[in-house]
């Protein structure tokens, strides 16, 4: 920042006023500028802002519910903007917000994601339940707007946002902007929605645009989603044994010089590239050359580039299916998309990649048309597997390579195949940090933690344990791990053994599903040790769950309900309430996907 005139929005100053301010600060050093900015901000806070507080105390409350942190980022950025502009702004996670307070609000904007097949994210669960229940009050004084986030690979991809949007209207609240639904590539839609909010605020809050708060631009992380860091790969090591049915990689990346930092629990966004085998197959079907040119957005690129680096060609979504149906005409596909086939559709999208649809329902289509049907290629998120203190300048991932056969063809996951097949030590991987404030270690190192992380869900717990060891945390650490076989799938076995020996890990219970006739999973181990689990909970332990959302997280949840029901001697409903209470208190945290 060199001059005040470079500030973002057009200032509410007359030209001569602006000139005087500019003159006053001309020639100041950056440090002086920062001090002055703080000084003026202070003046603003004490003198200017009160005059612009809307009558009847109308203010903006931004609420977010977020599973992966995207919602939190959008909400946070918006809050910063409105706050900088001088609008009274409050920002809350839905987990921390008392739903009954809605009655006292004037303007609420909600940024909420949808989890899996139409479920609210963990931190929005109780809010969602309350608002949709009969207990929700009439909200005729409330104005609101909703930004819904989701992943259109899932059928009900913005369901929670839609439900809240419709319900608020039903309760008499005034919708000031139509709901905007965003897919994984939410950036553009979210920022134009945010622009709409900012533009509408003076009207909705019934105030003239207040004076913007002037302060030094904070040093933003140089590398983010829009500007990922090309992280050198230090190690790409398969960590499943020779006869494992799985290929899981331990990947170590250097963050040296990136300015990136992270905390245990955060995720790393990895820019994916589509598998070249798959690109070749798509080109083959299109009868096109990778050198052909196509328009993606408003940029002309080669078809090879479009299919490799720009567009999603693995995960299939409803939008693509509908478009495909429209081209192909009435078909089995059309039937699937009619109302009432919801479950079949969910199943279908789960099993089919884009290419499977293309193969199964062939149509005559040119490359440009095909490309226009595809979604932007999204980065993939991986829970960070390294503790930042134990691994300065590095970040580690635990990546399950997705490769399987279906419909008589090989299938590949985008990012994991890229990592497995194309990334060697010395190559780089484009990454950015995705903070996940909902999955943090307890601030108090004396608190016990129970970590439940089967498969690659164990990744953040490697970070947790490393960090707790570095902190010298005195709380106990208990890990539940599970996978297919003891001999070949015991991820990080040697490290856990070492932590156990040295006191970094206090308990480790393992479940290997395929080592005996009957399958044993982590939830079985939780039930087996229910008395101790309950005892730890009674002593204040925080529970963390990471991994598969479809089945594991539900099964583990059920097991925890059983644990509480059995040892607190209450019925399941009361046990569920206790678990919900734990969740509200931040003592039951999940990072499931």
């Amino acid at each position, binding site marked *: 920042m060199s001059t005040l005139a470079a500030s973002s929005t057009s200032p509410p100053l007359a030209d001569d006023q602006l000139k005087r301010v500019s003159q006053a600060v001309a020639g100041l050093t950056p440090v002086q500028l920062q001090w002055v900015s703080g000084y003026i901000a202070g003046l603003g806070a004490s003198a200017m802002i009160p005059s612009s507080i809307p009558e009847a105390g109308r203010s903006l409350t931004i609420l977010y519910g977020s599973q992966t942190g995207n919602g939190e980022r959008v909400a946070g950025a918006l809050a910063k903007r409105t706050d900088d502009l001088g609008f009274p702004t409050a920002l809350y996670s839905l987990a921390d917000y008392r739903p009954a307070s809605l009655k006292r609000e004037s303007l609420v904007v909600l940024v909420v994601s949808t989890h899996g097949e139409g479920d609210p994210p963990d931190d929005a669960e109780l809010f969602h339940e309350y608002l949709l229940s009969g207990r929700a009050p009439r909200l005729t004084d409330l104005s609101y707007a909703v930004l819904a986030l989701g992943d259109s690979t899932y059928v009900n991809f913005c369901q929670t946002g839609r439900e809240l949007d419709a319900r608020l209207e039903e309760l008499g609240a005034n919708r000031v902007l139509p709901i905007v639904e965003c897919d994984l590539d939410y950036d553009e839609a979210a920022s134009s929605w945010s622009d709409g909010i900012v533009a509408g605020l003076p009207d909705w809050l019934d105030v003239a645009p207040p004076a913007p708060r002037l302060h030094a631009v904070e040093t933003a992380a140089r590398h983010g989603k829009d500007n990922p860091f090309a992280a050198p790969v230090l190690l790409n*090591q*398969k*960590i*499943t*044994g*020779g006869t494992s049915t799985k290929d899981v990689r*331990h990947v170590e990346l250097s963050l040296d010089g990136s300015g990136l930092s992270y905390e245990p629990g955060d995720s790393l966004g990895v820019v994916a590239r589509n598998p070249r085998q798959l690109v070749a197959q798509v080109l083959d079907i299109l009868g096109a050359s990778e050198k052909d040119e196509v328009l993606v957005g408003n940029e002309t690129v080669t078809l090879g580039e479009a299919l490799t680096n720009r567009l999603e060609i693995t995960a299939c979504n409803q939008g693509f299916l509908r478009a495909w149906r429209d081209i192909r005409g009435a078909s089995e596909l059309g039937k699937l998309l009619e109302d009432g086939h919801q479950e079949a559709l969910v199943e279908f999208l789960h099993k089919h990649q884009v290419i499977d649809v293309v193969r199964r329902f062939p149509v005559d289509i040119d490359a440009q048309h095909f490309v226009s049907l595809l979604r932007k290629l999204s980065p993939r998120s991986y829970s960070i597997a390294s503790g930042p203190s134990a691994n300065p300048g590095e970040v580690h991932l635990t990546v399950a390579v997705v490769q399987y056969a279906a419909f008589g063809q090989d299938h590949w996951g985008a990012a994991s195949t890229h990592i497995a097949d194309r990334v060697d030590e010395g190559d780089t991987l484009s990454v950015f940090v995705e903070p996940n404030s909902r999955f943090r270690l307890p601030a108090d190192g004396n608190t016990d933690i129970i970590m439940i992380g089967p498969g690659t869900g164990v990744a953040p717990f490697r970070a947790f344990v490393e960090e707790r060891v570095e902190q010298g945390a005195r709380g106990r650490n208990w890990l539940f791990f599970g996978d297919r076989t*003891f*001999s*070949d799938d*015991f*991820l*990080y*076995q*040697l*490290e*856990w*053994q070492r932590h*156990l020996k040295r006191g970094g890990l206090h308990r*480790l*219970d*393992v479940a290997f599903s395929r*080592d005996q006739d009957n399958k044993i999973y982590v939830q079985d181990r939780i039930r087996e040790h229910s008395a101790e689990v309950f005892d730890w909970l009674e002593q204040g332990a925080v529970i963390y769950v990471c991994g598969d959302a479809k089945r594991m997280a539900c099964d583990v949840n059920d097991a925890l309900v059983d644990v509480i029901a059995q040892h607190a001697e209450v019925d399941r409903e009361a046990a569920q309430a206790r678990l919900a209470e734990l969740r509200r208190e931040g003592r039951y945290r999940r990072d499931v996907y």
Partner: protein
Amino acid sequence: MTEEQLTQVERIKANSRHLRGTIVDSLADPLTGALAEDDTQLSKFHGFYQQDDRDLRSERKRQRLEPAYSFMIRARVPAGVCSPDQWLTIDALASRYANGTIRLTTRQAIQLHGVIKRDLKKTIAGINESMLDTLAACGDVNRNVMAPPLPALSAIHRQVQADAETLSAHLTPATRAYHEIWLDGEKLDGKEVEPIYGDTYLPRKFKAAFVVPPMNDVDVFTQDLGFIAIVEHGKLAGYNVTVGGGMGMSHGEPGTYPRLGDVLGYCERDQVLAVSEAVVATQRDYGDRTNRKHARLKYTIDDRGLDWFRGEVESRSGTRLKDSRQFSFVANGDVYGWQESDDGRWHYTLFVQNGRVLDAGDREMLSGLRAIAAAHDGEFRFTPNQNLIISNVSQAQKSRIDELLAAHGIANEAQATPLRLHSLACVAMPTCGLAMAESERYLPSLIDRLDAELEAAGLAGEAITIRMTGCPNGCARPYVAEIGLVGKGPGRYNMYLGAGFAGDRLGSLFLENANEDEIIAALRELFRRHSAQRRPGERFGNFLVRTGVVRSVRNGRDFHDGPVDARTK
């Protein structure tokens, strides 16, 4: 001797409550495929060794996985006799829990390899159900008692075998730990008494064998305790007692050496148990418990003298040993093919390369023996040379056995040259933790090359004993082979030459740290000389000694004297 000087293993034994240790907890630990470190010593007494797949060791370390631990389980088969039903049980256990192979040992026992921890108890219990067991198959106790494998050959053999079985039973540890841990026996928790061994058992392993001259198939001079049958007037009169044999040594430690047993004297049949117990007790009390490399009976005797030892044995047993009687041995190998015994039954000694019973290509040894076991109403007998005798076959069944052998491609004619028939190799890589070089996986291909050399030298029909081990501990008794190859490092061996064909003279070092080409080149020259210069019927080992290529070594303490490396001459 102070407490501090005792070896770690002595401390473990003393604290083990008669071999219990924490084996039960080790088995239950789901976080590792290994046992607690102390238990890996105690497990040997129960008949199994912890090992890991060394081929995978470095890969798994990079994978952040512990080594691929598995266990070798050794079943004790006194005198090497096994019924077809027992064989089928072992076969089933091998297929279900082990690596699908059965290994016949150089001590007439059988080993299963690759059993993982959670299958240990099921496997050991299964072995016991077949009326075999694994107790004291390894460890610092008396191991499997050996005897000539074919008692049916004569009344003498039958009596010797009975004596061997009696001694085996007498020297079995009394601990109930084995039954508690593996067979869910009543819990005594270490309060029982070990009448012969005491609470810390022996300082080191202890090996005993019986032999009937002129065959020295058990290699009696390599045993801590040996009984050489003395036949007078067609009857078993008694035994010459040998003591202080042993193979093991360490590279670069001249204080360790292979040693041939000394004949201590002669005893009557009914004195065998008393003499044996006295030998064991003397070693128990005087063996060196401060250094496991100096703890075998052979060192106790060399340190204190044979006369002293005889005095101890005589006073402890209340027996006066008589002067030894005449005997002579002709060979330490096996007699292959069909033999008829005095009762008109037939016995087929089957060559099992390196003792490994498996299906490999056209040679379906495992399937073949399974088929034979199902058809056979006699016994299987394991020889000290890793072979198997299909024993006690009626005249009528004989052709059926021949058919089955041929059908599975395992009849001796299909398998082997004389050199191969006289070869032994220990297991070594990838499972044995002690191996420094390959053995079982390598010797067959080396023999291919040596056979070509023998043929070129005009010695195609010549039987020469050749034995290889992956380390100097000597499981395959390489120091009493005419060609002994002992692993020093990957692809590198010490070659010892000149041992007696009957196992009655030690070899001596001829090449040190040699690779395959150097071994071949040296033997090519010696085969050529042997072919050209030998006396009628002269064995290769004897020839080398007579012509001064190597020294004649009878005394273990001379083994390292004046090492000869042919390449430096």
